[in-house]
């Protein structure tokens, strides 16, 4: 399947992904989200997990569970994040954390890298067992929320006052000597 990505990504990029994967062979990786089907995360993981396995990575994917009450609570959190201030009863936090504990016990979370893809499971970070930190990537916030963790002969820059930092006159110390050519 990875070869089929070349037509979309280009050969260099796929080569880069293969090389990166080679360096991650020893890691155990777990993806966690809140639904096995439906929604963007499940759609991505359905394709991403097989691809990661094809690259030789040790990857698992698990889905948290909860009752109707739990998902009503997480829906309230979602709405609060989307629309602004919402009164959240203390009981809702208790329900949320109770299900985090249940899921943490059932999922194990023994992997070295764990991706939590949905806010519904974000509380699992409290139960991490390995690694330096956790990544929390949610569909509403694609960027990471929390980690898993001289001068030439007198030619100073025109916009910059002359400074010893940019001096490479004969008296300049070796600290500020001209460098050998560096091609960017």
């Amino acid at each position, binding site marked *: 399947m990875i070869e089929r990505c070349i037509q979309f990504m280009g050969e260099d990029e796929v080569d880069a992904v293969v090389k990166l994967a080679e360096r991650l062979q020893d890691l155990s990786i777990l993806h966690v989200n809140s639904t096995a089907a439906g929604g963007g995360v499940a759609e991505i993981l359905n394709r991403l997990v097989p691809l990661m396995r094809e690259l030789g990575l040790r990857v698992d994917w698990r889905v948290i569970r909860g009752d109707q009450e739990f998902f009503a609570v997480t829906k309230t959190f979602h709405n609060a994040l989307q629309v602004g201030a919402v009164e959240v009863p203390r009981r809702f936090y208790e329900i949320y954390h109770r299900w985090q504990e249940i899921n943490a016990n059932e999922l194990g979370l023994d992997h070295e890298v764990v991706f939590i893809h949905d806010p519904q499971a974000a509380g699992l970070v409290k139960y991490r067992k390995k690694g330096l930190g956790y990544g929390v990537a949610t569909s509403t916030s694609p960027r990471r929320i929390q980690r898993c963790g001289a001068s030439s002969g007198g030619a100073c820059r025109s916009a910059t006052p002359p400074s010893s*930092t940019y001096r490479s006159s004969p008296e300049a110390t070796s600290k500020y000597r001209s*460098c050998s050519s560096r091609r960017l």
Partner: protein
Amino acid sequence: MVETKYVAQTLAEFLDLVDAVPGESILYHFVARWVLCGAGRNDFSTWLDKDFGLADVADELSSVDPLAFNGEEALREAVLRVLKKRLL
């Protein structure tokens, strides 16, 4: 890899070129050389340390995490921020 026409002989030229080269060049020297080529650290830090003895600037630049940015230009800005703070 495509070789560019940009060559820095001095620290001043280097600073100017970090501002001017294509984003792909920033990505190549800051990420690809470090991650894919096993260079140990990004090229910019290596050059600052090896050619100018600016080990502390090199270390600070190495602490810039490319994963924290969602584009080449954001990464370039972060690199320039460190360089300007320490060199100007």
